[in-house]
Structure formats: structure tokens, C-alpha cells
């Protein structure tokens, strides 16, 4: 039924889009592929606004290569197959030069074949499970080794956790991340009986049984921690239930990879205080760039209460990098820009610089923050240096020997260092 609704909604929006198509002459077209309706609208609308803000800012500076930037916004409506269609629309019909978009991995996987077929360019701004490196995609969110692995290290070394609950929403990102984490924990000597894995559907709201299981699992006398890849709005009832059943962050800390400032802004954060999140950016980090960005965002959106979050920073970095690369090569041609992007450096909002590596992933610092009562995070730990995003995890047997390098002579997203062969299967 939901599916039908989505189709109806999206076709209405699509038809209104067609009506809007007054093509201005000689502009650079920037496609925005974020869901503006459906379950993911909560998170993705913000990123659409971020891209529009960046475009406005760039145009105020005189655009790029003497041309104005023109946004083309489409709504894939949280409907995964529709992402492929909308990508095709953007590339074939609108002939956009670059696309910023996608949130869930399944939407990216759906758009990927079209991107490769029509040689498009996508900037993907959300943390994801890795195990992918396409020539046509730049991943500005965190790979598992830039978020999940450091978080587990923190829990293990600083909190002293020895028993682990891996809880996630049932789709590709949590499943792959948990597979990597399980392999990593076992490599660190954690026994099978000390790991509990649990999956729930999207939008799960009845957490009482699962939280009670976690409570039982955590009462075995060993320090227990929950690593949560629960996505979207299912988090809020989850934390509520934790609070109601009397599990505090001191007893069983929960570290989340999908809970940021934006998600917390719709919620009474009292029961969450002390729980953790691992990201590459927090709004609370004090730096000049960050303050400027936050002020610009609040002004653009016209609401003083709006917050910034990690995927927004990833969008910001991606956009800046693309603009820099376009200026460097003097064209928006995808192949030229793709090569020029490798090695581009842009300041992080949290200080330091982000560098685009040859595997299309960024080097970024990793931060771990504790949730505060005002819905912001207090940084309790950070990596001393930036971490290079690893496209293929070293902890999975199937991808142990794989690397990605899009520079000559390798020019391959899936290169086996043992056999020195490129399989060409990039995802």
C-alpha cells in the first residue's frame, strides 16, 4: 500500500517538475537527488537544502567558470527503484553535470548502474558500509574504518566493554557493518557467546522485548555495550524504551552511527544523555569555519533552531571539492573532473583538511561524542590524525586483498593485490 502511495505522490511531483523546466541558457546544472517525501524525507530534505545553499553561495561569488549554477531538484520519494529512474532523468534528459544525492545504501545501489552506464558523477554524503568503489561516485561520508571501527576501539579501550550487542535495522548498511564488526571483534578475541546480533524492520516502534533481551544479556557481570546501526526514526522509541526500563548510559552505553543532531532535534533528549555517537563532525566543535557554516545555514533556512550534522558537512566538503576540481580543469567534463578531484584538499569544518584519495574516499578525523541534554554532542574522544577511508574492509575475508585506486596505472575500483587483477566488479 505504501508503495502505491509513493508512486502516486512521486508522479504528481514529477509532473510538476516537468512544468518547471524553463531551461536557462548556458548554466552549469547541478542535480539534487534526495527524497523529499516518504520515510527518508526527514533526513534528506536537509541535504537538499544544504546543496541549494551551497549553490546560492557559489553563485553569489560569480558562479563557476563564468557560468551560473542551476539546481535541478528531483524527488525519488524514498522509493529505491525510483532512484534509478530519477538518475536517468537527471543525466539523459536534464543533462546535469554533477549529482549530489542518496542517503540509504540501497538507494545508491539502485542509482549506480545508471550512473556507470551514462557516465554521470555522484557525490554521496552519508556514512556507509564500504565494499564499493565506483569510478562515477565520490564517497564523502565515512567508511566503516572511519566510524564503526574507531567507535568499537573506544568502547573496548576506554569504556572497557567486553560483551557486545550489535543492533541494526534490517538492510544492507547495518548487515555489512555488523559483519565487519563481528569479524573485527572476533579478531580481537571476543567469543561468540559475548556477541548478540539483532535486526529490526525500518520504523520499528515496539522495542520492549528487544530492550529486555539486551538488559538480560548485559546482566552477565561483564561490561556490555550496544553498537547501534538502527536507522531513521526507529531510534527514538528505542532510546525511550531503554530509559523506561532503567538502562542508563553508565550501565550499558549505546554508540550509534546514524543518530546525529538532526535526529535528536525531534526528541526529548533526557533519557539519552550519556549515550554515544561516532561521526566525523559535530555541530558543537568550536572552529571558525564551523561557526561560519552554522550561521550561514541558520540564515539560509530562516530558523534559528535548525541544527547542522555530519552528512551536511560531507555535502559541504563534496561540493567544495567539486567546485575546486572544475575550476582546476576549466571544464565540467566528468572524466576530467573525476581525475582532477583526486588529491583535492578542502578544509574540514572541525579543523584540519579533508583530502580526496585515489579510492574516491576522504581522509577525515573521527570524533566520538556523548549526547547532552540540549541535543548536542560533547566530544569525548577523537583520533589524533585523519583516517583514510578504506573502500574494501580488511576484516572481511572476501575483501581482504582488494584495494581501489582510480589513478593510472591501476585505474580500478576492485583490484586484487594478490593476483594483481582487476575484476571490474565495483559494487
Amino acid at each position, binding site marked *: 500500500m*505504501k508503495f502505491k502511495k509513493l508512486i502516486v*505522490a512521486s508522479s504528481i511531483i514529477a509532473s510538476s517538475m516537468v512544468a518547471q523546466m524553463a531551461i536557462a541558457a548556458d548554466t552549469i546544472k547541478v542535480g539534487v537527488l534526495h527524497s523529499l517525501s*516518504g520515510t527518508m524525507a526527514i533526513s534528506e530534505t536537509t541535504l537538499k537544502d544544504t546543496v541549494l545553499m551551497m549553490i546560492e553561495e557559489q553563485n553569489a561569488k560569480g558562479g563557476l567558470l563564468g557560468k551560473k549554477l542551476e539546481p535541478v531538484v528531483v524527488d525519488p520519494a524514498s522509493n529505491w527503484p525510483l532512484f534509478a529512474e530519477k538518475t536517468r532523468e537527471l543525466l539523459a534528459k536534464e543533462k546535469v553535470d554533477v549529482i549530489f544525492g542518496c542517503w540509504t545504501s540501497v538507494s545508491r545501489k539502485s542509482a549506480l548502474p545508471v550512473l556507470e552506464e551514462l557516465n554521470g558523477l555522484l557525490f554521496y554524503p552519508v556514512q556507509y558500509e564500504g565494499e564499493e568503489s565506483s569510478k562515477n561516485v565520490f564517497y564523502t561520508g565515512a567508511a566503516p574504518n572511519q566510524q564503526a571501527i574507531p567507535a568499537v576501539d573506544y568502547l573496548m579501550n576506554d*569504556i572497557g566493554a567486553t560483551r557486545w550487542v550489535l543492533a541494526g535495522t534490517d538492510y544492507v548498511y547495518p548487515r555489512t557493518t555488523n559483519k565487519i564488526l563481528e569479524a573485527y571483534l572476533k579478531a580481537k578475541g571476543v567469543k561468540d557467546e559475548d556477541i548478540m546480533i539483532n535486526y*529490526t524492520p525500518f520504523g520499528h516502534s515496539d522495542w520492549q522485548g528487544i530492550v529486555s533481551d539486551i538488559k*538480560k544479556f548485559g546482566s552477565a*557481570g561483564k561490561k556490555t555495550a550496544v553498537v547501534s546501526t538502527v536507522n531513521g526514526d526507529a531510534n527514538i522509541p528505542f532510546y525511550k524504551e531503554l530509559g523506561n526500563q532503567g538502562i542508563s548510559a553508565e550501565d550499558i*552505553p549505546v554508540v550509534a552511527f546514524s543518530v546525529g543532531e538532526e535526529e535528536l532535534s525531534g*526528541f526529548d533528549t533526557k533519557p539519552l544523555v*550519556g549515550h554515544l555517537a561516532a561521526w566525523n563532525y559535530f555541530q558543537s566543535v568550536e572552529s571558525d569555519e564551523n561557526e561560519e557554516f552554522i550561521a550561514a545555514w541558520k540564515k539560509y533556512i530562516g530558523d534559528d533552531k535548525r541544527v547542522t550534522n555530519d552528512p551536511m558537512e560531507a555535502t559541504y566538503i563534496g561540493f567544495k571539492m567539486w567546485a575546486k576540481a572544475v575550476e582546476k580543469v576549466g571544464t565540467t567534463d566528468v572524466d576530467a573532473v573525476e581525475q582532477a578531484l583526486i588529491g583535492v584538499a578542502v578544509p574540514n569544518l572541525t579543523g584540519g583538511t579533508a583530502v580526496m584519495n585515489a579510492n574516491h574516499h576522504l581522509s577525515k578525523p573521527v570524533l566520538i561524542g556523548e549526547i547532552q541534554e540540549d541535543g548536542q554532542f560533547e566530544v569525548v574522544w577523537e583520533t589524533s590524525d585523519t583516517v583514510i577511508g578504506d573502500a574494501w574492509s580488511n576484516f572481511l575475508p572476501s575483501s581482504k586483498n582488494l584495494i581501489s585506486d582510480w589513478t593510472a596505472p591501476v585505474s580500478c575500483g576492485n583490484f586484487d593485490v594478490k593476483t594483481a587483477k582487476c575484476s571490474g566488479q565495483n559494487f
Partner: protein
Amino acid sequence: MLRINALRMITMRLIVLRLAIVLLSVFVCTHTYAQDNTNQTDSSLALSNIAKQLPKAKLSKMPPLVKQLGAIKDPKSRLILESLLEGELYYERSGFAIVRAQMNDDKKYVLSYLLTDAQQQTVSKSKIKKIRTNNRLRGQIRDVLAKLDLTDPDSSVRIEALKQLIDKPNDSAIQTIKELLAEEKDEDVNHLMQVILQVQLLKTGDDQQKLAAVEILKTSLEPAVKNMLTQQLAVLPKKPTDQQQIVLKKAITDALDTIESKRQFYGVVENIFFGLSLGSVLLLAAIGLAITFGVMGVINMAHGEMIMLGAYTTYVVQLIWPHLIEYSLFIAIPLAFLVSGSVGIIIERCVIRFLKGRPLETLLATFGISLILQQLVRTVFSPLNRQVAAPEWMSGSLQINPVFSLTYNRLYIIIFSLMVFFALLTFFKKSSLGLHVRAVSQNREMARALSIKSDWVDAITFGLGSGIAGVAGVVLSQLTNVGPNLGQAYIIDSFLVVVFGGVGNLWGTLVAAMSLGSINKFLEPITGSVLANIIVLVGLVLFIQKRPKGLFPQKGRSAD
């Protein structure tokens, strides 16, 4: 003579002794007084010393400071620790004085000085900076405070303190508990103290003591007891030769078995509770539909949106009266009933009555209405989820024993949904309007012939069903996210419950909701929640194949 002498000697000695005692007591008094004095200055000196370090200390440097604070016996140090625990410890950017800062209603901070007697004052956020804590620090503070709380006059505070200490008792805490045990009058506190001491004996005592400890502990459900027993069992050799060890091993195994079977029993009870609570949520969501779909036969796809409107009503109520969060639900319930009910009546009057007897068109029209309502909410309130606060009395749980507790919100919801159910049942059975509704649903023509205004009854019935959905929305706002998609999540479940229970039968809806909830919760631990949902759906499909009219089909001529 000798005797007299001896007597005199004794009196003399007594006098001397008395004198000595008097002298001594005077000395002791002055001395303790002096000591008190030095203590006072010592502690305040140490306090101000630590207070100076607090603003600049890094998180890694904090634990020793907290330890020092805990060692100082001064109410001020306790106040500092409590403020730190609550996240209310700040320091002034100018002067570095540490203060407890609490935000008031105008987003300003009220400062109370912790070390000096300076007056309270209200400042803006920029004047002060928070002293940071993290989980480890909070845990440490709780341990420190727990030791102090052991002598608290309130027995519930003492119990909390003991619970904090039970997992990691340190020697000084054990010592304190030993001293306090004899004077402890409260039975529960006394029992918990015994448990802690026995657990300690189990760890450190000899075999004889261990055996005695096992005997006492085997009735306790505290997780710490089970863990210690398991630990001790692992320490014992596989095949003990020593007679005492054989006995001990058997005792421990038996105790673990007893504890395990008790835990399993409470596990089942807990699952029943979870099942009932999920069932009562389903019941609330579905019962409005049971009226509109079951009694009137209208397939109302906008039913979920009526629930959503109820949830948003709660949000608006809390927005208008931010001071009345505790009572917001009581205000929201009648309001939500009115809001959703009147929207329902408008829909019925404007759309549905023109589509009578055309189920497919009704379905499409109400589906369209649901999209309109969703978009309306998106435009008015934003597509983001809205924050609905839970009143104090809805949070927390009723601890029945260490392995079994009932969360208050679920408990109240079960009670509330049953109340709604029986209220509706009485309405249909006893009131004249209820009689009219039943009459119209059974035979419209006949009812009209008896001068019942069937149009009017239709509108009221639809309004009632929608209003109940609004009330369900108030309840759901306490459990899940309040967003434009809230209704979609419950519409399918609601239809399932109504169809499973048998269309047109309120009791069927009750039984269906409770059994679907319970089946789901009993499957969940075995299969995981994703598979549990699928199994329930497949089971339902098969059931409907076998009995298309549900659990309790309507009988008689009015059935078709």
C-alpha cells in the same frame, strides 16, 4: 585497720579516677573541638583547592579529583558531585568560580555559588562554561555517592545505593555495610545488605562459608548473585575429590537451577506482558476502524491519518501549555477526540455519503484524503518529526523483582485501551444512540421506517470511529514518533486486526488484537522481529483462507 585502710585506698582511687575522667573528658572535648576546627578548615581548604582545578581539568584528569571530593566529608563536596552528575556544574568565564547553573524558562541560567555564600544571580549562557563529564566519571560519582547514601534516612535511597554497589563492592563499602547491618530496620534494605555480604563471602570465604552463602543466596534473583555463582562453579574442579567441594558443587548447581527456572518463569510472564501491551496498542488503533469498517462497512483508508491528527493534537496541546506537561495527556484526549471526530464527520458529510455502496470508489476517495491530510500536516508542521514529551508519571518502571519489571507507560496503556473498549461496548449496548447505530447497520431500510435518521446516525458513527482513532493517536504519541507518516504505519495493522477478529464484532477485535500482539512477542525472541512479522502475516493469510469471516463471524440475516 587494714580493712579501713583498704577502704580508704579504694575511695582515694575512685576520687582520683573520677578526677582523671573529668580531666580527660575536658581534654578530649577541647581536643575534638580543636580537631573539628582543623577538619573544617582542612576540608574547605581542600575543597577550594579542588574547585580551582575543576575548570581547567581535562576529562582524563577528572577521576582523581572526584575521588578526592568523595573523601571530603562536607555537604558542599556532595553538592558539587551531585551538580556534576546532573550536568549542572559550570564555572564563570570571569573568575573561574564554580557554580551550579539551572536553566529557567527564559533560557537564562540561575547560578547558585557552591563555595561562597554569594547571592544567586541570573546570567546568559555566554557568561558561564560547563564542566564536562562522561560516562565513566558519572559512574564513579554514582559509586562515591552511593557510599554516602548508605546512611540516608530514606530507605528507597538506601536501596538504590546498595544496588549501585552490588556489582562492584569495594572493601570500604563492604565495611560500612557490615557496620550498618545490625541497625538496619527496613526489611528490604536489610535483605539487600545480606545479599551483598553473602556474595562477598562467596567470593572470599572458605568452603564452609561458601556453602552457607549459597544456602542464603539461592532465593535471590539479583544478577550479581547468578554471576558470582557461575563464577564459583567455574573455579571448582570438574570432578572434585574433596567431600566438601562435592557438596558445595552440588549446592551451587542446585541454586543455579532454582534461579534459572525462576528467571525463565518471569521471562514468560514478561513476554505475556509485552504481548498484551502490543495487543492493546493494536486494539486502540483498530477499534475506531472496527466501528467505521466493521459496523458501517466503509473502507476508510484515512483512518491512519485520524490517528496522526490525534498525535499532533497532543503536540499542539504541549506547545500551547508548556507548563502543563504532566496533565497534557488528559487535556489532549478529549481534544483529540473532538478534532479527529469532527474531521471524520466532515469527511463523511462531504465525501463518503455520496459513495454509499461503492466500496472501490470509497477506498480510492479516502486514500486520496489520507494523502491530502499527510501533505497538510507536512506543510503546517514541517516534514520533520515533532517532539512530544512524556509526562513524569509515564516514564520509568515498576520493579517487581530484579529480573521482572513493568514499564509504567505500557501498563497505563493496557488499562486505558481496555477502558476505551468497555466504554464503547456499553455505548453500543446501553445508549439509545448505540441502539440506533446497531439498527442502521443491521437493516437500514427498516431503521428508517422506524423514523431513525440514518444519515445523521452515519455521520455520528463515522465521527465516533474517527474520534477513537484520535484518542489512539494521543497514546501512540507516547510510544512512537509523531510525524506525517505515523498513520501509515498503523493502517495495515488495524485492517488486519479487524478482519482477523471478524468484521462487525468488537469482542473479535479485542481477541484478535491481543492474540496478534502475543503471538508476535512470543515469536520475536526466537525468530527476530523481522521474521516474526512475516510469520504472523503468513499465518493470517492462511487463516483468512480457511475462515474468510474471521474469528467471530457475524451470524444471522444481517451478516450479509
